[in-house]
């Protein structure tokens, strides 16, 4: 069996030059494949006498086993090298995948929409350029009413409509209340109107355009506890389950009773004190969230809803405001959101 000895020698030599699994595969085919060297010898067995065949057969089987062992050893060796010896600096950066960003307001809107969806509120979108009537008169704010001062307003340079007055940029999303009542005609109503709002105020801490979300719920037997429950639900979903809300009496023309909603401060956990110092962020442990109330009967009337049969509540909160109040966001000035600076925007 000289050829067998030679073969093992050659194999050993081949394996010495084998450094990866591809090469090893080639070697394996060369020796153990269908047309490999071991099989070539096997094929010759049939030419031998029975006795020689049995003897040679045993030898060839031994050879085959030896070849397999050598190859397997090499495989082990390569495996070990690959898994245990090959070093890289895993702390080098990964392949850079471009990371885009959304505006902070987009995240907020999506989250707000989802939270209210759970309660069966549908999202609506109403005109941003609106008639004075829908922005004020229909909301129980006749012209010359001082309450209109709270909603300083941009007017559009266009002729007055004889029924609806001038065109304005909506100073609040509340005009959507009337629009939704007129659309639905007969309650139930569960609406969340998210949109852009505008006020002529542009300085270090004000922007002339911002976003609000307006909730409106009208049905039979809707009362103050439903308003409290809904806002409490929102506050816990949006800000965290450890936050509490409270209502304080307030005045808005379009709601009666009217409230301001406060939420416990995240910094002092509603205590008003951090250690022995007054909390810098809040007033006595509470932060103002926004305005709300039970829909005024005059507003229901403007929306064509029977105020004897139906009651409802509404609220209007600032999108940027609630987002900035979210723990850990760290944006304290609304202007930053509208500076259109890539170094800011790409962070979100």
């Amino acid at each position: 069996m000289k050829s067998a000895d030679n073969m093992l020698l050659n194999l050993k030599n081949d394996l010495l030059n084998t450094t990866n699994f591809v090469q090893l595969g080639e070697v394996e085919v060369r020796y153990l494949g269908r047309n490999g060297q071991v099989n070539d010898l096997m094929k010759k067995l049939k030419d031998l006498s029975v006795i020689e065949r049995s003897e040679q057969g045993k030898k060839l089987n031994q050879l085959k086993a030896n070849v397999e062992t050598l190859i397997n050893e090499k495989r082990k060796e390569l495996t070990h090298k690959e898994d245990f010896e090959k070093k890289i600096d895993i702390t080098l950066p990964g392949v850079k995948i471009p990371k885009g960003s959304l505006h902070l307001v987009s995240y907020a809107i999506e989250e707000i929409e989802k939270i209210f969806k759970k309660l069966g509120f549908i999202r609506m979108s109403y005109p941003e350029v609106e008639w004075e009537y829908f922005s004020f008169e229909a909301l129980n704010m006749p012209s010359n009413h001082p309450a209109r001062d709270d909603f300083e307003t941009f007017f559009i340079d266009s002729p007055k409509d004889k029924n609806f007055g001038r065109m304005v940029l909506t100073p609040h999303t509340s005009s959507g209340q009337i629009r939704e009542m007129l659309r639905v005609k007969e309650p139930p109503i569960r609406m969340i109107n998210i949109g852009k709002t505008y006020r002529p105020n542009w300085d270090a801490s004000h922007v002339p355009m911002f976003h609000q979300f307006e909730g409106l719920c009208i049905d039979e037997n809707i009362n103050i506890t439903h308003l409290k429950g809904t806002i409490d639900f929102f506050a816990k979903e949006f800000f965290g389950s450890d936050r509490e809300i409270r209502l304080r009496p307030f005045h808005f023309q379009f709601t009666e009773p009217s409230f301001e909603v406060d939420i416990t401060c995240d910094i002092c956990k509603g205590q008003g004190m951090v250690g022995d110092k007054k909390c810098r962020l809040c007033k006595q442990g509470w932060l103002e969230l926004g305005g709300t109330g039970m829909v005024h009967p005059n507003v229901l009337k403007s929306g064509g809803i029977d105020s004897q049969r139906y009651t409802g509540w509404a609220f209007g909160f600032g999108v940027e405001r609630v987002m900035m109040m979210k723990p850990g966001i760290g944006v304290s000035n609304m202007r930053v959101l509208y500076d259109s600076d890539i170094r800011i925007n790409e962070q979100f």
Partner: protein
Amino acid sequence: MNIKITYNFLLDYLETDATAYELQKFLSLCGPSIETVEPVYDRNNKIEDYVLDIEITSNRIDMASVFGIAQEAAAILPQFGKKARLKQIPSKIYSFKTLKAEPLPNIKLNVEIKDAELCQRFTAMGFEIDSVGQTPELISRRLKLCDISSINTVVDISNYIMISLGQPTHMFDLDKIAGKKLILRKSVAGEKMTTLDGKSFTLPGEDIVIEDGDGKIIDMCGIMGAENSAINNDTTKILFFVQTYNKTYIRKTSMKTGQRSVAATYFEKGLDPNNVETAFAYGVELLNQHLSPSACTELIDIYPHKVKNEVISITKRQIDNIIGIPIEKEKIGKILEDLGFIVKSSDIKLDDHLFHVTVPTSRINDVSIKEDIIEEVARIYGYHNLPNNLPPMTFIRQPKELDLLLNTVSRVKSFLKHIGLNEFLQYSMISGNLLKSLDIDINNCLKIANSISTEIEYMRPSLLPSMILALEKNEGKKDHLNFFEVAKVYLTNKNSLPDEEFRLSLGSTESIFKVKGVIEALLKDLAISNFEFKAKNNNPLFSTHQQAEILINGQSVGEIGKLAQKYINNREIKKDLFVAEIDIWKLAQKASSVLPFAPISPYATVKRDITMKLKNKSFNDFEKTCFKLSKYLNKIDYLGSFENNITIRLYFTSHEENISETLVSNEVEKILKKDN
């Protein structure tokens, strides 16, 4: 508005065991918001008093006084287990009847009210004094703590009445009113006067003023008296003056002249004419205490139409239905009475109760419907005592179109973010200069009539100007800028509201093919397959040969282009900009969630890379021809261009059999031949 009062001042009217901080906590929950409590220290550095800064909502001007707050406190504090009781109710103590009999008047005042609509109640009386005097320490100190400077006894008393009872009053120097004549009338535009703070005004017209009969205006009523009749150190005759005016006029004048005096912030909200008498009598009491004056005119009181109390009827059930839990009828009655309402009640049905609630005249501007009564009960009962309930579940269908539109907006934003673009949100209003610099006709844009800056004067008719601006602003801040925005544009309509259309804008500093690639990827993600970029040259905003219409199923949904060199020059932009704008609604209508499944051929695919010249054909047309020529051609990949050559990879396969290399070579030959 906010008012400041002090804790000790409040204790003049209120007996309570609540501390200043407890007042703050409890009143803020049920009534006026006490924003801050500041301790006041005496000489020995001990706290002697507290200043309370209180927010007064516009409907509750009746509460903007020490007594007003005391009354709220008397109703609220017992709900929190605190003792609270009103020590005195001024209207029950002070009235014209309490005025002492005076020496006979020697001066006759001549008052004429030209228009009864202007002034509900007019009271005045002249007094002779020795001198304007030195204000007693208690009054001047309290005024200072309440942010009002102390001037002299006469003026200080006037201000002290306002803080105590919420009724502004005025003191004239009677000697300076030459004819002792007071004509209350509307001003004529252009009349001139100087108020006692030295500011001169040309009146806008339709302002309530008092003229002395000589054409001299001595009062901008409800706002500020004139300099020409002001009290000074030599004054020996004063005219004490207490009125209520038509709030609408006061407000208009105050806003138009910009003279926002404290008095104006009271009068413009509408005051109770019945409180005039109380304030007047209290004022005379203070004058008597500190200046011992003698009357020199008769008391004038013109009050033709007495304000009547309103009665509101409401049932317990109506109250419970809005509050959401049952409130005991005794509790309802007690709350309302503590607030100064008069309540008569009777059982109506077995389980219901009827209340007839008489509204005090101080509240008639604010309380006029059932809901107002409910608010009073609910807030004093305490919103914090109400449970949290979710509204009953009900299904509301969102309008399908809006659902689709908003869903598409959300998909578009999320996709673009995830492939590496940055979203910007920009103002809907842009400057005329920006529009002009891009040759966009401002006459087609909505203009803001009262803008506060030329930067935000027009409603944008397209998102592209602000996209260009955003790219411009961020030039150099990063190697490549790839931005997008989803927002409404405003398209003018004649005599009706504009069309508000949701659009997507894209902008890049890289190349037109970057923007095109983004759009192609986006369309594929929206499962839109039949789209095409059709070269065009009709939009002057873009370079003639670098613009295209974006078509889906042959319908235009937007356009893409390189910003024309003219505008790059105009705006001094350093790099080329590539932008696109797409109508989201049109996109939404074509979008679906997934494309139909295409089965995979079980037979081999043969690939061939070829490099060739396209000559005069567009790649788009070439592609179409290729597919027409070879039924085995499955896909073409564009690999790149070099000079005039393009390199493409062709994929051939058949769904019926394995195809041979020879067959593929023939197919490639056909394609090459045809094109050459």
